[in-house]
Each structure stands twice: as structure tokens, then as C-alpha cells.
């Protein structure tokens, strides 16, 4: 396995708890000190050309993890601890000027809502050119040519005309393509795609996924795909990491996880996909609700909703139990099974 593009170890990102947030909104001088670790000790790594999917219900911290990588956590969030190695450089140690050089050049990001992710009062061309010229000195004409070429590469028809149109003149799919073009403008080593297809209708979704696959294959670019849609993950991901309540529950290759998931949460998650469900049986669903940040049980955070929870789960935080050299799960039950096997 060649040098990983991204290596995140024990990342912890905290936000003030809801209670202190309410007091802050009201202008309280000293909001309650409580901060909850929305991302609590997440570790993951991606090799060049590899697609890692980060899966989990909404609110499990997958987006915050992604934003933390580029240090884009919105206020009042804060990265407390952990190491983020991006192409061998520790992102958290970088001064702001160098961090800016990393964003867009070493790692780039596209978002879920293409409708609102583009500046409405600037043409799409200008916005892509800005992405280019932020990192490379280049004449306007050269930048424009580069941008048109990028538009063609991401499949935007008559790219030169589109250069001068405004975001509100393009469809959702075209806008997402512009976002991707913008992300690819400096051939970054890592592309973070936060729910890239969720806001698009199905036919466009397929085209965007095909584009992402082509990007991985042609440029050997590592992709961190964030999604709650297991169908999309199944199509694109090489490896999958399942997150629950700020922690990685299980991690492994696509085949391992989809064929024989071991962590109870992953199992129930897969079971609730309609397409895999056998007709006649009631749809499987997970009882209870994801606990709010800061109100997590001491031990394994899934314990309150886990059908295989037993004595240690409530008090002891599960450690990673290796199932194969690429497959791990953080669950006492799985650890027990492995001991016996």
C-alpha cells in the first residue's frame, strides 16, 4: 500500500452543547462550559486512487469530520485534538497562510447543495478562475482556457458559453459539475465529496457518480465520499467506514462490510435498505433515536439501541477488534466472537 494521502488519528472536534448554545444566543456573558465532542476519536486513512466512504445517519459527525480535515469547522466549533496528515503534512500545525495554500490545491471539497454553494452574483467562470489564480500566477486568458478545459473534462456542454453564465442560469446537475471542475482545478491529491448527489434527482446522480469514478481512475485521486445513501456507497466506494454518534463503529472493504457486516449497528443499517429487503417481511428499522451530543452513554454509544448489548457495553468503551487486516469493528460482542473463533 503506497503512502496514504490522508491519515487521521484520534480526531476530536467539539461544539458547545445545546444548553450553552441557547444561553449564548441570548447574549449571556459566560455560557455554560459544556462542550460535546461531535467527532470523538475518529481515525481513518485513504490511499491514492482509493475511495473511502464515510457512512452514518445524519448528525453522526461525518460532515464535521470532513470539514475538520480542511480546518473549515464553522464557529463556535473547535478541533480539540488529534492528528490530520494530508500528503504527509500535519494540517493542524500549519499557519493560516499555508493552510490556505493547502485548501483547493492539496485537498478540495464539493458540497451537497450545488444550488447555494456557488456565489449567485458572480459568473461560474469567474469563480473557477478565482480557485485557479488563488494558487497559481496566470494571465486571465490562460486561466479562462484552463477553466473551459476543466468544464469540458467534467462533461459541461459548450463550455466556452457556459463560462459567462450565472449560477441561476444552470441546472442543479450542471452546477455540481462546475463545483467538481472547481475542485479539480489544481489537481488536488484528495477530493472530499460531502453528500455530492443527495440534492440531485436520480438520473443526474448516476452521471455525477460516473464522473467521480472517472476522476479516481484518470487522476488516481483519493476521494473521501460522505453519504447516508448506501446505494451510492455500494457503487463507488473501495472501503467503507460506518460512523455512529461521533465514532467509527466499523471499517472495512466494501465487500467485507456489505457481504458480512459484524457490528450490530452496521447489520441493522444494511437490513433497513428497501432494495435488500425480502418482500412480505416488515421493513427492519432501529428502535430509539440517536442520542444528542453530550448525552451519550459512557461505554459504547450504540448500547441503548443495540440488540446484542451486554454487560461491558454500557460502561467500557469498545476498542478496535481486528477481523481481517482491512476489517475492524469497535464492539465487545464482535471481540467476544473473535476470541472464540
Amino acid at each position, binding site marked *: 500500500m503506497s503512502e496514504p494521502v490522508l491519515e487521521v488519528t484520534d480526531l476530536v472536534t467539539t461544539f458547545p452543547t445545546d444548553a450553552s448554545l441557547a444561553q*449564548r444566543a441570548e*447574549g449571556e456573558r459566560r455560557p455554560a462550559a459544556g462542550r460535546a465532542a461531535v467527532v470523538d476519536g475518529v481515525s481513518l486513512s485513504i490511499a491514492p486512487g482509493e475511495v473511502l466512504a464515510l457512512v452514518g445517519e445524519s448528525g453522526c459527525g461525518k460532515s464535521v469530520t470532513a470539514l475538520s480535515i*480542511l480546518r*473549515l469547522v*464553522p*464557529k*463556535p466549533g473547535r478541533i480539540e485534538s488529534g492528528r490530520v496528515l494530508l500528503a504527509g503534512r500535519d494540517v493542524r500545525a500549519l499557519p493560516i497562510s499555508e493552510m*490556505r*495554500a*493547502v*485548501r*483547493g*490545491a492539496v485537498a*478540495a*471539497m464539493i*458540497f451537497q*447543495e450545488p444550488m*447555494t*454553494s*456557488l*456565489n*449567485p*452574483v*458572480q459568473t461560474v467562470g469567474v469563480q473557477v478562475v*478565482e*480557485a485557479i489564480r*488563488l*494558487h497559481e500566477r496566470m494571465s486571465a486568458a490562460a486561466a479562462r482556457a484552463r477553466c473551459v478545459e476543466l468544464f469540458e473534462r467534467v462533461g459541461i456542454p459548450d463550455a466556452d458559453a457556459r463560462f459567462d453564465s*450565472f449560477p*441561476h442560469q444552470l441546472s442543479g446537475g450542471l452546477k455540481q459539475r462546475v*463545483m467538481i471542475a*472547481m475542485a479539480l482545478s489544481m489537481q488536488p491529491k484528495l477530493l472530499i465529496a460531502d453528500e455530492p448527489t443527495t440534492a440531485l434527482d436520480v438520473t443526474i446522480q448516476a452521471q455525477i457518480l460516473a464522473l467521480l469514478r472517472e476522476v479516481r481512475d484518470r487522476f488516481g485521486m483519493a476521494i473521501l465520499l460522505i453519504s447516508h445513501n448506501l446505494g451510492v456507497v455500494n457503487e463507488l466506494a473501495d472501503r467503507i467506514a460506518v460512523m455512529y454518534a461521533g465514532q467509527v463503529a466499523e471499517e472495512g472493504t466494501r465487500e467485507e462490510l456489505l457481504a458480512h457486516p459484524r457490528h450490530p449497528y452496521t447489520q441493522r443499517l444494511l437490513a433497513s435498505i428497501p432494495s435488500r429487503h425480502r418482500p412480505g417481511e416488515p421493513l427492519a428499522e432501529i428502535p430509539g433515536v440517536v442520542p444528542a451530543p453530550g448525552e451519550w452513554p459512557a461505554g459504547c454509544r450504540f448500547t441503548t439501541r443495540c440488540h446484542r448489548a451486554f454487560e461491558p457495553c454500557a460502561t467500557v468503551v469498545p476498542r478496535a477488534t481486528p477481523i481481517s487486516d482491512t476489517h475492524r469493528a469497535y464492539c465487545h460482542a464482535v471481540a467476544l466472537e473473535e476470541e472464540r473463533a
Partner: protein
Amino acid sequence: MLAYAIRRLAYGFLVVLGVLGLLFVLFFLYAKPIDIARRAVGEKAPSAVLQTWIAQHGYDRPWPEQLRDHYWRMLSFDFGRSDIDDVPISRRLSEGAGPSLSFTVPAFVIELLLGVGLALFVAYFRDTYIDRMGVILAVLSMSVSILLVIIAGQYVFGKLLNWFPISGFDPDPALLPRFIAMPVLIFALAGIGGEIRFNRTLFVEETSRDYVRTARAKGAGDGRVMVRHVLRNALIPILTHVVTAIPFLFTGSLLIESFFGIPGLGAVTVDAIQSSDFSTLRVMVYIGALLFIVFQIVTDFTYTLADPRVRLE
């Protein structure tokens, strides 16, 4: 676009006619011709002279005729003479325009720049004590009457610290800055509270938008994000708010010119009020309305520059 322009100008003209109509009614409510004559000619004049003056100025004609003449003269900018000292009002306007603009324009520009600049600065430091302090100062400055700001300013800067002349005016370029320094300072600071507060709320709202996150993801620096993205998007509401600040130019110039002895349009208006010289007052109101309408139309057109989404149908 052109169709919209024509329609907008036509509507603007209709409003001008409305304004003139209102002024004519007010004028007639105000004075009977014999009073105006006596005021212009003087209390001691025999009634014969008064009648000739009334005939000369056409106040004895039936009101529809006077209405038509009123519209015709106002629209052709022939403002006639002041009731009090018979000086052609148009000459008074041209003499007064210079001094008035010499301090209202710089004050307006400074207020706009500071208003946007400080608001951006405070919005950038959102939820820090700089932000809270900025808002508090803005609300405080809005709650102080401009009358007090002028009185205190003249007393402190003029009398105690000897920085600027207490009052007075001289168009000579070498002397002009020292005369308009305090009026501009006071005028800009008086209106800035409202501007900062209004702009700050706009900027805070824009910074939470998704495209700002995209810009930062691209590696854009904070300064660039605030100006090229946040400010550009907040431009339209700022433009509309700026238009509403124009009338404030008149209030400010009215007070500041009489306190600082600047012989501008404000001073002429105050003099017209205190000596009940309605013919001059009428022209001042007319010019004020005209400027306001023109400025509103101009602002409508700048919308398209500021925001491509706006289609002027």
C-alpha cells in the same frame, strides 16, 4: 430594460406632478395674496402699491390659472422671486448649492464607507466582545439627537480644544477643509449608528451562506471572502438603505448649516421657515423631492449591476 426605464421615468414624472400639486395646495392653505404682498413689499406700503404687486405677481388670477402657471414655472425651473427680499430664488439655489454640497457629499461618502467598513469589521469578529461593543455603540449613537451632537461637538472641538473654527465658512480651497472638518465629522458620526447596525445584520446573515464556505474551501483568505463574496451579495439591501439616507442629508444640512453658519441650502430653508417665506420653502421641497426621485431611479438601475438575478421587467 429600455421599456422598464421609460416606464420608471414616466412614473417618476407622475410623482413629481403629484408633489407639485401637494405643494400648491399647501401654498394656498398658507397665505392669502394680500399677506404675501405685504410681506414682500413691507408693512408700511400703501394699499395701491400692494395691489400693483399682487397684479404683477399674478396672485389675483383664478386658481386654475395660477395652478397651470405654478406647474409651468416649476417644471421649467423658473422659480420666481423670494417673498422676503425679492432675490431670484434660482440665484439663491446656485449660491447655496456649493456650500451645502461641500460638506454633505464628503460626509455622505465617509458615512457610507465607514458604515460598510466598520460593519464588515464587526461582522467578521462576530460573537466576540468587539461585535457586542460595536452593536451597543451603534444603538447608543442612534439614540442621541443630532442637536446634542452638534452642541457638544462645537463646545468641545471648537471652544475647548481649538482644533477647528467654532463656525463660519470660506469657499477658498485653502480654508475650506478647516471649516467643513467638524460638520463632516459630526454629520457622518450622527448617522453612522443606524448604518453599522443595518449592514452588520446583513453581513452576519451572508457569512452563514454556503457559497462562503465554498470560497474558504477554495483557499480564499478572510479579507477576500468578506469583500468579494459577502459584501458583493449584500450590496442590494445596502443600496436601498442608502437611498433612504438621502432625506437625512437634508435634515443634517438644515441643522448643521444654521449652527455652523454655512450659507448653504439648509440655511436658506431655515431662514425661509423662520420668516415664513413660503415661496422659497416651496422650491426647496420641490428640489428635495426631485433629487430623491432621480436618485431612486438611479438606484433601481444599479441593482442590475449589483445583482444579476434582478431582471428589470
